């Protein structure tokens, strides 16, 4: 106890220098913790986004994940309703599951032939009420502004849906949908060839004979496009599709391709008159920590019932999740190393100066019979104490700063998303982060004190006493 008292008094002896040293450590702690909390927020934000949009686990027909996107109808889940019932009624899974919902993805051609505009589309068919329920997932209590409760598709309305903004632009729907900053497509050039014979029948009259007003536009005047797709047998299939609105999908590739529609319409397009299947079944759990056990349970369940299905979790389906985790971790490690080095040098510097100043004192103590280890311990405790004071101050300051920042209302748009969300620092559930930063800095400070302490301990008593 005496040692600690002496160490504390020694720290106070040169108060300004100790304050600067402790401040350096505190700033290091603040930087690391704030950045760690920011990363933690990004990660749970990504997780919440991924889970809210696609669920934790997705069930596919075996082989779909590797080969299916080229031919979704050949890798579809037959009798998906019974598979869903099997999952929902499983006694182990039942208490963990929020939503189990079927999904159909397909490729085809979307056309607005009145404007002679068409392009390939990537369609996603889902059950709107399930999708809304999934979007409310909020395990980490992150308030997500935006359109949580409106997916633009209704359960009871097969023909309406949404398209990406890029898709709307290509199809010339900017004006009807009232999209800002969206130019209308240029008039297509009517290329014509000269040497073709003029038709000897009146083509206009001929095609006017059977022209049916496809469907009277509904009262809400949503613009109509045609969606073409082919079934597995190659039969072409066309449906009318009314666009409620254009949604921003976050990145251009998807924005230019996306059509969100009712599950039944997607099934109609992809399976035609055949059995209406599902391409995938999405499962959302209450808590992410149950994901591994639910995954194992599903595998066991499918093996037991001889179902040819495979399960993937959102980390596999969204490779950017793990990429962003890795990227952020690398930055965090880098910053931590730099902070550690700074702390190391600060402590080494401060303690070396102490040792220099107190050479006479060390000689006196040694002459009075204090052993080398006693001197070393003395300086080690001083370093440890500086580190502790600095790190503790840093942790306390960080919580004040984070609290202030979280109330400042900063907004940002996370990677791969379309709408700005509040930028927060995650202050709950980061105990491990706080402790490891605190412990790391204290350890660093103690190690840093080791070199000056060793030097002090190795001094020759006579030289130290004579030192001026």
């Amino acid at each position: 106890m005496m040692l600690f008292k002496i160490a504390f008094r020694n720290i106070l002896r040169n108060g300004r220098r100790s304050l600067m040293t402790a401040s350096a450590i505190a700033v290091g702690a603040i930087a690391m913790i704030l950045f760690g909390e920011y990363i933690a927020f990004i990660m749970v934000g990504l997780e919440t986004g991924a889970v809210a949009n696609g669920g934790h686990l997705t069930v596919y027909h075996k082989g779909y994940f590797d080969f299916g996107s080229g031919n979704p109808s050949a890798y579809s889940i037959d009798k998906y309703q019974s598979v869903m019932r099997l999952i929902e009624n499983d006694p182990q899974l039942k208490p963990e599951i929020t939503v189990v919902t079927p999904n159909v993805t397909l490729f085809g051609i979307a056309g607005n032939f009145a404007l002679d505009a068409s392009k390939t589309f990537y369609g996603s068919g889902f059950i709107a009420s399930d999708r809304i329920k999934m979007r409310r997932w909020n395990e980490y209590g992150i308030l997500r502004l935006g359109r949580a409760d409106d997916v633009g598709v209704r359960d009871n309305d097969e023909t309406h849906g949404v398209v990406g903004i890029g898709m709307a632009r290509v199809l010339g729907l900017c004006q009807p949908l009232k999209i800002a900053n969206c130019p209308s497509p240029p008039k297509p050039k009517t290329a014509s060839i000269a040497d073709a014979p003029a038709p000897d029948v009146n083509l206009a009259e001929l095609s006017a004979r059977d022209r049916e007003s496809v469907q009277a536009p509904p009262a809400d005047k949503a613009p109509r496009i045609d969606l073409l797709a082919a079934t597995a047998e190659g039969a072409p299939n066309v449906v009318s599709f009314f666009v409620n609105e254009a949604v921003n999908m976050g990145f251009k590739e998807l924005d230019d391709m996306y059509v969100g529609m009712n599950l039944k319409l997607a099934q109609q397009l992809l399976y035609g008159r055949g059995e209406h299947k599902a391409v995938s079944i999405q499962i959302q759990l209450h808590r992410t920590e149950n994901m591994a056990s639910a995954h194992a349970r599903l595998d066991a369940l499918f093996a037991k019932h001889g179902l040819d299905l495979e399960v993937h979790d959102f980390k596999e389906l969204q490779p950017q999740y793990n990429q962003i985790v890795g990227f952020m971790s690398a930055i965090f490690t880098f910053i931590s190393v730099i902070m550690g080095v700074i702390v190391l040098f600060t402590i080494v510097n401060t303690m070396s100066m102490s040792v220099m100043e107190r050479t006479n004192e060390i000689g006196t103590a040694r002459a009075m019979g204090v052993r080398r280890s006693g001197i070393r311990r003395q300086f080690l405790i001083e370093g440890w104490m500086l580190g502790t004071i600095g790190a503790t101050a840093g942790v306390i300051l960080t919580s004040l700063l984070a609290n202030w920042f979280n109330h400042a209302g900063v907004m940002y748009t996370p990677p791969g998303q379309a709408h700005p969300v509040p930028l927060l620092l995650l202050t709950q559930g980061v105990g491990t982060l706080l402790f490891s930063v605190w412990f790391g800095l204290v350890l660093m400070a103690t190690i840093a004190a080791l070199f000056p302490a060793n030097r002090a301990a190795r001094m020759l008593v006579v030289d130290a006493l004579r030192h001026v």
Partner: protein
Amino acid sequence: MKKLLVGFALAALLTPAALAQSKPPTAQDIVAAADTTRNPGQPFRITSTLVEYVGGKPRDRVALVVFAKENKQTHQFSNLVRYVDPPRDLGKMVLMNGSNMWFYDPSSKVSVRISPQQRLMGQASDGDVVTANLAKDYAAKLLGEETLQDADRKDRACWHLDLTAASPEAIYSRIEYWIEKGTNRPVKGKFYSDSGRLLKIAYYHKYAEQLGGMRASETIIIDSVDQNLVTTMTTSDMRAQDIPDAWFQREYLPRLKVD
């Protein structure tokens, strides 16, 4: 993509001589009669010209030579289509064998498979209107007799038939089909997709003597999805030719020598 698939201007156009009918025919008989007439009963070659009209103005023209042979097992035609005009497309070939479709480019000497999903647009799908052997894949029902204006605005007394898909290979879920009474010549067809939407309308006209039968030498295909688009398919120079089976092998395409 659209261009390369230009149609399979085939056998379909060949509507043969009337079958002698003594008693009132059943719907299936009528369709079969119209079908058998599409098929000259022997392998043949034919020159086919497709012109695409947009809003009444010709936009594109392609001339093809089609070699067709009926597969004895499936009763569907295997087709080899060779581009002859415009010159930049000369030598390109499309092989259609059952539900497989291959595109062959002579400059690279490779053939590329075209999946069903990639045949959606343009005239690619027009082949379906003219090649299919309808009696096999569809169940026909007689809706009644009707007097119908053909493409030349002439009234024809027709059987009005309703064909519904009876096998998974059937491309369309439903076809409305008008066949002239007595001659069993198809006059008009309306083709519907699985979703019930009208996809295209075909008028068969300009019947002329070709390879031992009266066959339509022009088919007008009206696209009902892209309503500006009309394609005419004119056939000529139809003659019997013995075609080796090897011609319908994908591997044989690079070695195929056609005049």
